């Protein structure tokens, strides 16, 4: 069922619209930046961008010298690399964050009679600069603007809200629409000329007139100064009023309406930093039970905590760990067992963890071992040495559940991503790339050659491109629509309807 994806669209999402914006509105504040760029024009621009010869894929290569040199972001690497992807609760909006601190929100087009296939197309809805690079003068530390995570809040009124975070600061954004404009001034004519104040004989109350839809993104709250280390996760609680933020050593609990106070609920910092043996790599709240959250560690273990039992959750309620197989132990064992992502299933019964080579599904009721283990790219086990040398072994791959929890997805190298059907135990490797897939054509499964002789259509392990990695993926909460971030490209695929 999952295998019939077709590439719905290439969207050169970040490069062009953003360049456009930054060229014209560099120093403006966020709301005005929004008003300067009505979403219609952005979407149009984006659509134009697709067939344009300046394909983003061409830019992804190493031949970036002259371009990179222009931008100050280049010092830290490319600013348009997507760093997080997240659907909202209904799936109608998709948010991406990038290294340059920008957030782009895509909206799904509604069913349209004249263009029957337009349903499911995601177009740019709003773009805004969420974080700016900062400098911590007390610690002499540069704070990157890169968006580490985006989390949507459950919808509470006509506006949409999301949390975005960089290494240190979490921000709550409101994305709202405006389609009316007030008209009629007392002191000015329609064309803006001043009236003679002596001749004002009657008062005019402004009248609201319809206008083109305008989408505004406004920062509502800033939750700062609570993390000493880098924030790796944020997660909204099912009680709709609190959320957690986790850094390398601590987890804090916030109230969504209170910015100047947070509660530390987990602190694994040893008194003596030399005794440090593990760090927190990810944390998430249970989807239904407001008192339960889990956090994973670099040692490959997961701790489940119950906030009911005590205000400080330094003692866990459950501890998930798979006993290590002594036969496969090597220098890299510890590094590759580090968990890079943990996600609860929608049902709340299972959770999934991603380590370097595999993805595991745990039943919350069984702590001793996972109920499923899927190999993502086992063929890399022999290449760990070179992956260590080029630092790829520290890549943090994320993973996600399908809406029905029946399938899971995670990324790999060479623009490959993997899907596992939990019921049929089938798995598939797909490639997100502009060259190898045409719009509305099904994606072909790819295969990596592991043995001696390479068959046709197979790719040898040695020819994999480790610079093209898919770290961030997202799955529509109800339908088989997936979003895959491949460096600076966002691909959206969906189940082929017919």
């Amino acid at each position: 069922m999952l295998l019939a994806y077709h590439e719905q669209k290439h969207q050169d999402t970040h490069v062009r619209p953003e360049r456009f914006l930054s060229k014209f509105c560099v120093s403006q504040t966020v709301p005005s930046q929004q008003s300067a760029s009505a979403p219609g024009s952005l979407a149009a621009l984006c659509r134009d961008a697709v067939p344009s010869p300046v394909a983003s894929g061409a830019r992804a290569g190493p031949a970036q010298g002259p371009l990179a040199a222009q931008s100050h972001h280049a010092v830290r690497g490319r600013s348009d690399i997507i760093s997080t992807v997240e659907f909202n609760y209904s799936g109608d909006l998709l948010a991406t964050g990038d290294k340059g601190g920008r957030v782009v929100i895509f909206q799904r087009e509604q069913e349209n009679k004249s263009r029957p296939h337009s349903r499911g197309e995601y177009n740019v809805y709003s773009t805004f600069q969420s974080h700016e690079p900062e400098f911590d003068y007390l610690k002499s530390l540069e704070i990157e603007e890169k968006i580490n995570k985006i989390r949507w809040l459950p919808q509470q009124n006509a506006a949409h809200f999301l949390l975005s975070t960089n290494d240190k600061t979490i921000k709550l954004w409101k994305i709202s629409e405006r389609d009316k404009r007030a008209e009629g001034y007392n002191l000015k004519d329609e064309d803006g000329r001043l009236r003679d104040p002596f001749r004002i004989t009657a008062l005019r109350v402004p009248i609201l007139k319809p206008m083109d839809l305008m989408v505004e993104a406004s920062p509502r709250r800033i939750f700062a100064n609570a993390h000493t280390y880098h924030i790796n996760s944020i997660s909204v609680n099912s009680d709709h009023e609190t959320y957690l933020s986790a850094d390398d050593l601590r987890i804090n609990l916030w109230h969504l309406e209170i910015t100047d106070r947070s509660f530390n609920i987990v602190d694994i910092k040893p008194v003596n930093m030399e005794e440090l043996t593990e760090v927190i790599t990810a944390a998430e709240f249970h989807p239904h039970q407001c008192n339960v959250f889990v956090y994973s560690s670099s040692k490959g273990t997961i701790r489940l905590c119950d906030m009911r039992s005590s205000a400080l959750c330094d003692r866990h309620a459950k501890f998930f760990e798979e006993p290590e197989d002594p036969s496969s132990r090597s220098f890299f064992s510890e590094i590759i067992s580090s968990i890079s992502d943990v996600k609860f299933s929608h049902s709340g019964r299972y959770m999934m963890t991603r380590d370097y080579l595999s993805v595991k599904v745990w039943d919350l009721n069984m702590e001793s071992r996972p109920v499923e283990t899927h190999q993502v790219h086992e063929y890399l086990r022999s290449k760990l040495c070179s992956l260590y040398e080029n630092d790829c072994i520290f890549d943090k791959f994320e993973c996600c559940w399908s809406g029905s929890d029946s399938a899971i997805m995670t990324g790999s190298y060479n623009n490959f991503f993997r899907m596992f059907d939990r019921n049929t135990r089938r798995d598939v490797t797909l490639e997100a790339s502009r060259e190898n897939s045409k719009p509305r054509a099904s994606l072909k499964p790819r295969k990596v050659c592991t043995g001696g002789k390479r068959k046709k259509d197979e790719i040898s392990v040695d020819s994999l491109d480790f610079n093209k990695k898919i770290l961030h993926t997202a799955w529509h909460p109800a339908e088989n629509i997936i979003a895959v971030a491949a460096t600076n490209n966002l691909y959206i695929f969906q189940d082929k309807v017919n």
Partner: protein
Amino acid sequence: MAGAAGPGTGPGAAGGDGDDSLYPIAVLIDELRNEDVQLRLNSIKKLSTIALALGVERTRTELLPFLTDTIYDEDEVLLALAEQLGNFTGLVGGPDFAHCLLPPLESLATVEETVVRDKAVESLRQISQEHTPVALEAHFVPLVKRLASGDWFTSRTSACGLFSVCYPRASNAVKAEIRQHFRSLCSDDTPMVRRAAASKLGEFAKVLELDSVKSEIVPLFTNLASDEQDSVRLLAVEACVSIAQLLSQEDLEALVMPTLRQAAEDKSWRVRYMVADKFSELQKAVGPKITLHDLIPAFQNLLKDCEAEVRAAAAHKVKELCENLPTEGRETIIMNQILPYIKELVSDTNQHVKSALASVIMGLSTILGKENTIEHLLPLFLAQLKDECPEVRLNIISNLDCVNEVIGIRQLSQSLLPAIVELAEDAKWRVRLAIIEYMPLLAGQLVSMCHMLQCIGTVCENLAGEMTSDLFLGSGCVECFTCSACQNLAGIRHCALSPLLPVYAIREAATNNLMKLVQKFGTEWAQNTIVPKVLVMANDPNYLHRMTTLFCINALSEACGQEITTKQMLPIVLKMAGDQVANVRFNVAKSLQKIGPILDTDALQEEVKPVLQKLGQDEDMDVKYFAQEAISAVAQRLRKLDFPVKDSEEPSDPEADKNHFLRPRGPGEDTGKAHRERAARVAPEEAVGAARFRGTDAAKGPAYQLHVNTETHLPNWKLQN
């Protein structure tokens, strides 16, 4: 910049003559849409002016529809709008037209910002009272229903607060509907709505008939109290208080107590915390009988709860609980059922629990009486005075006076004073400060208690850190004291003046004590013992101590009277006007202003004025500022005495309002932001000290705290003379 948009659009002359009734209103209306939030806010705050100018008809047909769709604005503006609309009935044509105000408030009741929503609900409740019963059912009840069945939970949460105002005035059929709506909100899918319903449950129960309370509210309460989300369950505890007040003892036992017992043992510590936090209210609501056989055991459990937060909350309530017990048999209950648990808490592992207990435990002594206090409580106090956590020690010391009343000073001095003396050299300055503040209380008993004096002397000695023989010079001063008393008083004085007290707050407290002591012992004593000591400090190499001289003089001058002030103190103050440090110089100006009223006019005219005028030409702007202040004060006094004054330089009032009439924006104007809940951060000690200083003086003058703050940050910083 802000002003440019307003007057820029029309010449200022228009405000003066011409059509002076319409122009300002026209500006106000246009500024409802100004880009500057502050201007929009101003306009909204003058909405009644606009409505008055438009008349009731146009307000209803034009202004309100416009406002209904203006909910895109900033929170501050929306908050102000919601507030304004609550008082708008008269401006739309009286109670008959009050329903016109519902649409804008309805849209405000759906915004995401809680403060705005709450304010809109508050205004709606206000307006509901102005509806006639007919209008209420025709307009208000439908609004409540619309909100209650709205798509977004923001509107449903707002609806929860409106049931109780329309229920009492509705007909029976409508009442049934309202109850039905409330029921469905109590089982809403969204926890936000269930929380809102739970928090309004008690209020709604109060307006319901008793039968409905029993048949409908109690089941709802039971459901909410066993909600899967602990954030909902904990709110049910609050509702429990109101419901319990409505029911008879029998019903209470049958309907509410099972739920309450369950809440006190809830799996979630937050719920148990809530029970502990609301314990006094619960105790009052359920009455003495249930308290005895249900709440006391529950309280014992809370006192030994596994979660420190819960224990701390319970410890806070110990005193109130004991006070509210029926007087008959109270002592036995406390001694047998509460005290054993308290004894354990004194050695709790968590310092918050201990300090919570320490803040109330002294209150028990009045309830238990002298015998029990001495036998059972004093050992606990002593243990807490030696606690490793400064907060605990501090809480005990600051409440010593209530024990004082019960067991008397003699007992107190014998048992507690040695411990207090030790504390005088505590490492935490807050503890030392508390000791100093406690001293006048002890000094009040001085005459009869030589032993005490010795102790106090030692306290002071410790505080001062050293006590050299020259400090005893004051002996032989006042006849009514024994020699040792005087020695010890010298100790007190020394402590008050101690150059070794680094923190400003302590020096300030010490100075204030000085005044109290002088009032107690008379001027002669002051002249012989204190004044010389103070004056010697004027030559101290440390400018902080030189300033202390000035502070002491401020405090002493009034008590000492004109003669001593003019003869002994004034020359020193005047001499210090030439000090190198600007802080000292402007404090001289302040001191002169302060002692001015005590001096005679000759001294004022001949000595004070020239010095002040010289300071008025100082290179430092702060010195100049305070000199000006002082000059005008002195000039005023001279004028009162009919003395011819040539140069009465009144400094111009910086606050003078030169603004356009439409924009009187004071700096302190409420922007609405203050309404958002803000919790105080725990500031570091130094910052608190600094804030204290700023709080007292900074409001008066320019930003001179730049100078002064250094003293709290650099306590040992010496200036070269």
